Structures are given as C-alpha cells and as structure tokens.
C-alpha cells in the first residue's frame, strides 16, 4: 500500500471547499435546531394537551427514523407532493430537524432538573413565569445542557456526511468526487477522517471552555 501525500495536496481546493461547507451547514443547523428545541421543550412542558402531544410526537418521529431515511423522504418523496427542494435546502432542513428533536429532550430534561424551589422562590418574589424562565431557569439549564449538547454537536457533524448521498457538496461528497477522478481512497478517506476528527475535537474543547467561562458560579469556591 502506498500513501501519496501529493494526491491530497493536489486536491486541497475541493477538500477545503467541502470542509468549509460541512462547517457552514452545521454552524447554521445547530443553533436553529436548538432554538426549535427550546420551543418544543416549552410546548411539551407548558403547551397544554394538544401542543404537548404535538411536540412529543414530533420528537418521537424524528428520533425513531434513521437520518438517512429522513433525508430520502425530504429529497425523493416530497417532490411527489409537488414540493421540490434543492439538496442544500434539504440538508439544512434535515439537520436542523434532527438537532431540534434531540435538543428538545436535552432542554426539557434540563428544565425539569432545576430544583422546584428555584421556580417557587421566583414566584414568591412576585416574578412571572416568563421572567423566571429567562432569568432563573434557562441560565441554570445552560449548565446542564452544555455537556450533552457537545454530544449533539458531534453527532450532527458526523450525520452531515449522510448529505453526500443527495449531492450536497460537503466534505464526504467532495472526497468521493476526488476519489472518482484519482482512484486514491486511502489518502482521501484518511484525510477527511482526520478533518472530521479535528472538527469534533475542536467542538469538545470549545464547549469545555464555555462550561468554565459561562458558568463562573460553578467553579467559584468558598474563600472564607
């Protein structure tokens, strides 16, 4: 077996483009997914029977169907109903929806794990639920969700490779394209594996940093 570094160097441009698109797709989908996730969590907790059931059904549906199948449904089945979306749009929708379902459960669990006394203390002070949510619950929820959100972000980055099957020109798609031209799977798959690993490692490091710097109260110690 040979490992020809020149193949990678010769094709750095499409690799860089693909990598940038992977990062871009994930950077947009993750926050959208989280905003939807918070909304879904609140619907499930306080939305009344109809909205809570809708939110629960949405989460169950998205978590229980393979991501690849969801992508196929959006890309191949929706056009049968007259809705034809470009691969990139399908990619954004599918990844955001995927992230929202997991984020909803992460956020819901986190809100429930803030002690009831926190909400009671807010009520006792005369605060309304919206203020309690914004000033008391969600800031504490951040502490609970950061570690689990790291898993979600990493999962999202990895699932984004699936979008190559519907020709979204992200890293895996570009890699397959290069291999098709150069017949060098060893070099190209190795380098994209390293790129994915580097990206997810960066995310882990970043969230660890956030855990410390967004939550000074968790690391503050008694000083007497």
């Amino acid at each position: 077996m040979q490992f020809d570094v020149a193949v990678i160097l010769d094709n750095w441009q499409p690799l860089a483009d693909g990598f940038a698109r992977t990062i871009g797709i994930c950077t947009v989908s993750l926050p959208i997914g989280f905003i939807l996730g918070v909304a879904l969590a609140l619907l499930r907790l306080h939305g009344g029977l109809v909205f809570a059931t809708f939110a629960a059904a949405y989460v169950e549906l998205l978590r229980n169907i393979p991501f690849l199948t969801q992508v196929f449904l959006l890309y191949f089945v929706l056009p049968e109903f007259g809705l034809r979306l470009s691969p990139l749009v399908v990619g954004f929708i599918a990844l955001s929806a995927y992230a929202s379902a997991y984020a909803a459960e992460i956020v819901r669990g986190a809100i429930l794990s803030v002690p009831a006394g926190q909400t009671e203390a807010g009520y006792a002070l005369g605060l309304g639920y919206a203020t309690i949510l914004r000033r008391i619950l969600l800031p504490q929820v951040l502490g609970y969700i950061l570690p689990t959100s790291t898993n979600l972000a990493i999962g999202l980055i990895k699932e984004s490779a699936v979008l190559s099957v519907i020709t979204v020109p992200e890293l895996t798609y570009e890699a397959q394209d290069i291999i098709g031209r150069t017949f060098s799977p060893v070099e190209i798959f190795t380098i994209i594996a390293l790129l994915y690993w580097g990206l997810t490692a960066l995310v882990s490091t970043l969230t660890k940093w956030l855990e410390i710097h967004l939550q000074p109260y968790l690391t503050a110690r008694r000083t007497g």
Partner: protein
Amino acid sequence: MTNLDEFPREDEAGTGIKPPAAVEIIGLNKWYGAYHALHDIDLRVVTGERIVICGPSGSGKSTLIRCINRLERHDQGSISVGGLELTDDPKRVQATRREIGMVFQNFNLFPHMTILENCVVAPMSVKKIARAQAEELARSFLARVRIPEQAKKYPGQLSGGQQQRAAIARALCMSPRIMLFDEPTSALDPEIIKEVLDTMIALANDGMTMLCVTHEMGFARQIADRVIFMDHGRIVETAAPANFFANPQQVRTRQFLNQILR
C-alpha cells in the same frame, strides 16, 4: 371551628373595632387527591403580629403558609391578604405575592447570580426600580442582615447561615408587609441557627408581620404573639407563648411539647 374565638389580641379594648387584618383565612380546606391536608382552618393575623406555627411533620403547617402566597392552591374557603381575596386571577396572585416575602428551608437562592444580583432581580423586574437604586437598597439590607461583604459572591461560596440571611435580605428588598418563614433553620447546623434567629428577631422587633413555621421554641417564647399548634391538617391549639408552654390545653399539644422540649 372555634378558632376565631381564641384570638386573644383582638378587640382587647372592647371597642368593637377590629384592627386591619394582614391575613384573613376563613374555612380553608385543601386536599392532595384523597388526602385532606388542611381542615377547616380559620386564622386572622393582624398587622405587626408575630405568629409561630409548630406541629409534627405532615401536620399541614408548611402547606398553610404556602397557601398564603399561592405556592399552593386552596380548594375551599377564602384567604385575604391586606383585604384582597386570593383568586385564580394571575394579577391578584402577583399583587399579593409582591406584598409577601418568603424564606425557605433550603434558602432557594439563585445559584448563578451573585448575592447582590439575587437581591435586585425582583425589585428591578417587578417594581421597575433602576439598577443603581436597587443595588443601594440591596446593600442596605445586606448590611442589616450583617453580610455586606458577601454582595459580590455566589451563593455556593457562602455558609448556610450566610445564605439564609442573604435569602432574608432578598425577600426584604421587595419591601414586603408580611414575611413567611418555612422552617428557616431546619437545614442549618446548630451553631449557625442562632445567627439566622437573631436576624429574624431583629426583624420582629422592627414591627414586621411574621408567620414562622419553626420548632425553635426559644424563638417562639421570645418574639411570638401567638403560637399555633397544628396536627393532621387542623389547628389544635392557639395561645400566647407563656400559656402555650406553661399550660397547654389539649392532650395532643402536651404530647408534642413533651417530645420536643427536653
């Protein structure tokens, strides 16, 4: 149902004019499913009165004071605070809560906010007081509970006694007319209890209307106008502390006092 006759402070001068009620509870009943948590409670608390409520666990004493600021919803009867009856109307509930400060067994300080921030969040959000003014107010109350130097620390950095005093300061920042204490010293080490009780005694001496669920009988002797003993969701006995401890009328009260005073 005879509780209303037992209030010694009312109408002592025989003028026929009742002092204004800070809290008026009439015919209060509450159930948790089939469990009858509060049974025909009548209680009238006048402004400036200090009430201590004691009783075994599960007797309904915490539930009773939590009904007063609507942390628990009552099923029957009426509760009026400052003449305003508590209903399901959220505006009324919030208006009532604004007049009532509450101190919890587990402090319930907001861990992600500094002590100062804990104290200013409600005055700024509910009363729309400017930050500078709210902070000034907060610092004055933190000085009053003798922890002015802890303002910039997080709750987790304080001892239990300091946290509870911070929680008292936080409640006082809303300038409540009534303070509810739900077992404020039960989570504290014995040697720390005194610093919290001293803070409560100072508050009582300033004329605050207080309802305290506590088993600190020394505290009850020192500041209470009335001691209420509850059991199985009923008010069993109400008396001035001197009578309550020296001459309890009910067998159940005597049993309870024998258990805790030794």
